[in-house]
């Protein structure tokens, strides 16, 4: 199941460093008290840069919607087809969402509305990505 390997940049390095330590950290704007993902240079609500810090969040979420990729365009993922691609909202702030292939859930069996928990998956030596697994 080879997934594309994320390439960290200056902005995203703290995020990926945390993922490689099996932690989920998101940008947090103190003035707005809002989480932000993916990371950006400034808070997208108040445009503050000074107020942005990294905050570890509980890896709990829910599946909001899901599709099955049967004929995607990414060469590296074609051998995996068909596979789930879910949109997962974060319980700590449902305005934040993530993609997930729902490891452990067969294609076409994604339970929309179900609770999920973050997990981490190695996509290259030393490089993890965050994934989400359905919890019983």
């Amino acid at each position: 199941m080879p997934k594309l390997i994320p390439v960290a940049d200056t902005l995203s390095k703290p995020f990926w460093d945390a993922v490689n330590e099996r932690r989920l950290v998101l940008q947090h704007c103190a003035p707005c008290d809002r989480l932000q993902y993916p990371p950006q240079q400034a808070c997208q609500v108040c445009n503050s840069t000074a107020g942005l810090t990294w905050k570890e969040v509980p890896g709990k979420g829910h599946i909001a919607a899901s599709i099955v990729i049967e004929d995607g365009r990414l060469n590296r993922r074609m051998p995996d087809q068909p596979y789930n691609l879910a949109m997962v909202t974060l319980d700590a702030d449902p305005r934040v969402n993530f993609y997930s292939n729902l490891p452990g859930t067969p294609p076409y069996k994604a339970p929309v509305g179900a609770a999920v928990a973050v997990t981490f998956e190695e996509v290259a030596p030393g490089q993890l990505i965050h994934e989400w697994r359905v919890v019983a």
Partner: protein
Amino acid sequence: MTASAGYQWRRDKDGLGVWEHRGKVAVAGVGHSPVDRRWDEVSMDQTLGAYSILACRNAMDEAGVTPDQIDGIICCDSHIAGGSGGSASQWAPRPYFAPPYDSEWGLTLINAKWLIEQMRLPNVKFAPTGVPTISEMVGMAAQAVGDGICHTCLVIYPTGNLEGRYRRGGENADDYARGPRQWTAPWGNHGGNDFINIFPHGQYCLRYGGKHDDLAPFVVNQHRNGLLTPWGYNASHQVPQLTTEDYVKSRYVLNPLRLWDCDRPVNASAAFLFTTAERARNMRQPPVYVLNHSQHNFRKRTTQEDLDEIEDWTDRAARRMYEGAGLQPKDVDIFNPYDGYAPMAQFFLEAFQWHGVKRGDAFQFYAGDIRVEGPHPFSSSGGNLGNGRTRTAMYTDSIEQLRGTAGARQVKVRAETALAAFTTPSSGGWIMFGKSPS
């Protein structure tokens, strides 16, 4: 050549009021090339350059305009959609030919400079570079003519396709996910309007009821309208009429998105001639007036747009357009939204409340009579699903309906105003046409 960056032509804010050039700009000519599935990389009379020249000449002939009268050229210098194709849409290098086909320009990329040279247009003074997609190009042309920056402006939109290369290379062939793709590609999202809309579409079905295949009547009708469009891919290649059975049995791409929910990439070009309303009145065709143009570029708050965001964005786009045109939903006769992937049209239909359709009503509306002969001739163009991914059918049909020259597609209801767009819910633009300037 002039860069477009310094020209503040966009109407992309809320509350701008009625467009200052409302009814003072008109479309006087439309031209299409043939629509092929792909360029065969051999036939030099079927290159994207040859087709763009042909489309321009057709538009100029229709208006009765000579090359020396053209003083504006707005051409999208990408073969697909600005930069949205990313590196997967970069098709050079290749073996080249004798001039003017000794580089990618003219083969699969066209810009104003190349066209000015090939068409020997001596008086062009407005030829912006880096122009975006067709929805913004028509807005730019309308504003430039209204502002007096040019008075007779060709808008050219080429869309190319080569065997085996359509978004198959570049970053889509990469093992690494760089830049913004680090947040999407590892999980399989290759980026595009298909992904933008399919998740909110799923949420839509849950919120309002209904199932994906409730789109079937819309898609089948798009194909029907396409077969009534002589220049379109389906009509010019004798594509059989799609049936509901064909649709529901078609394979999935991004399940539940089906093959027939997606438009067919093609090799084609189209041109539209914008001029002042005053000049247009002395040209060969009845003027079709521009009543407003508007743009939007809404920023998503997280990884994937959700239904709430999509409904908010499309509502705002509708308010901008209606305010700038000085019209209301009940005033719009022809409605040609973008349909490159079927599950987005309902968002536009409901936001603009065309024929009274409100949030959650679209599937029921599709199940009614939306034929061009009927009372609700939705998307009379056949759009991109019915004609191929030219991204211009919405504009051509709107103009022809107001002229009364849409042939077999001519609607039976009133046709005095028309809305057309090539837009995603998050970015793009709309244009309102009128049979009269007021």
